[in-house]
């Protein structure tokens, strides 16, 4: 119940909803109270905090249930531009072997978009780029583009709008001189 309240308040406080913006302070306050009840304000090494966290994760109840809520998240894409010593460029996307992993990858991109801590986001992008470089070790460098696809509304789709793509950030990575197994 407390986890549900924490996540619901968090969603209401950080995303556009039908509620007025003035209510955001109330949602933020509610989230903080719920987080405190869950021990999240305690020190990292506190036994109570760790006990609650381990229990919540073990029982699968560490997160709320706001799937596709309050709105369906944007569709994110990542594209890698491979640059070769002879000046060639090629484009790649992360590859998975089946649909089940594909769904998981989409979830990863959603999470990546929400990471506001830049060094962590860059590290995650580097790991993705490295997995592509391992398949193309003769590439000089890789530029990773991360963007958001704007999907058309039904009326826009009927008018022929197929959507657009907005670049959110890009990183350059070079793996020259690296061994294949050391990102």
């Amino acid at each position, binding site marked *: *119940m407390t986890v*549900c309240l924490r996540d*619901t308040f968090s*969603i*209401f406080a950080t*995303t*556009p*909803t*039908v*509620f007025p913006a003035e209510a955001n302070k109330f949602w933020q306050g509610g989230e903080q109270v719920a987080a405190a009840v869950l021990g999240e304000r305690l020190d990292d090494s506190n036994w109570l*905090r*760790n006990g609650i*966290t*381990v229990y919540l*994760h*073990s*029982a*699968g*109840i*560490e*997160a*709320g*249930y*706001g*799937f*596709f*809520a*309050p*709105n*369906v998240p944007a*569709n994110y894409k990542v594209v890698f531009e491979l640059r070769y010593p002879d000046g060639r460029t090629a484009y790649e996307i*992360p590859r*998975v*072997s*089946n*649909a*089940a*992993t*594909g*769904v*998981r*990858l*989409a*979830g*990863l991109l959603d*999470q990546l978009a929400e990471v506001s801590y830049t060094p962590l986001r860059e*590290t*995650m992008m580097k*790991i*993705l780029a*490295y*997995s592509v470089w*391992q*398949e193309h070790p003769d590439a000089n460098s890789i530029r990773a583009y991360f963007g958001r696809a704007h*999907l058309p*509304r*039904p009326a826009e*789709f009927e008018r022929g709008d197929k959507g657009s793509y907005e670049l959110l950030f890009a990183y350059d990575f070079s793996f020259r001189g690296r061994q294949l*197994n050391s*990102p």
Partner: protein
Amino acid sequence: MRTLRQRLEEFLFPADSDTWLRILRIGVALQVIIYSLSLRVDWHDLFSLDRAGVIKRDLSEAMLSAQSHYIPRLGWLVDFASRFGVSEQTLLTLAWWSLLSAAFLLLIGLFSREAAIATVFLHLCAVKSTSGLTYGVDNFTSIGLFYIMIAPLPDRWAVDSWLRNIARKDNHLQGFHRRILQLHLCLIYFFGGITKSAGTGWWDGASIWYALIRPPFNLLSPETLIVWKHLFPILSISVCLLETGYPLFIWLRKTRTLWLVAVITMHLAIGLAMGLYLFALVMITLNVAAFGTEFSFVTTETNATREVVAPRGRFDRAAIDGTGYL
């Protein structure tokens, strides 16, 4: 006149059969088996530090450590095995086979409790070591597994019941565990419905449209879907009402069947239209285990089998009722 405490006891400890547990055990074990098989090809890529996986296990586990160092993860097993000279690749292969075997034992109900604990642990290790690649289905599988692990095992269909001759547990204990699952599902749907209702897209149908055309869930082409555009607002408002109203209408005897069928239909539709088959399976399993055991195809229990455990006088009403619903 019954006191509040008696009413609460009747509500929390109704006499119940183990039918719900059979459904939950078999459904969730199947879920884990399919989960394992679906990741068979990518298993080493996902978890090995030496492979070209899309995200490394060490990053997931480092992010996990930011929450707590005591949450289970595959890194523990890899580190432990390395002390005995077992390579990461070998350990990962062993872990996959162990998860599959534990889930299979759980499916047939052999060493039910041990299999449940092993499945919970190994599934948790796998899920937490790929925390960047997890989604709702993993949480719901964990929820189902956790309930099985603490439930009064074995149930009547488990191999343990006849091969190892393990006695069946108190009917009121069965009722209590099922009641907690029922309350949990009510919370899940209520909060899911409330948060959806707060978004404008769920009132004008845009969210249903976006959900269906958004890769990788776009199994149906937009050209096919657009024909049904007038249905989107009705469908999306129905989803909000169905989820938010779940705690009330699933509890009322007159509307329970309708609500249960509607929720199962919703999950079937999500599974088929968006390719979320595992998500559909686990949600249907949880719903049928919690609220669907009164249907005739599973209520084969006789009065004789009910009396394995001596009835308690104070639970008379719930025992007669057979379901414990107030």
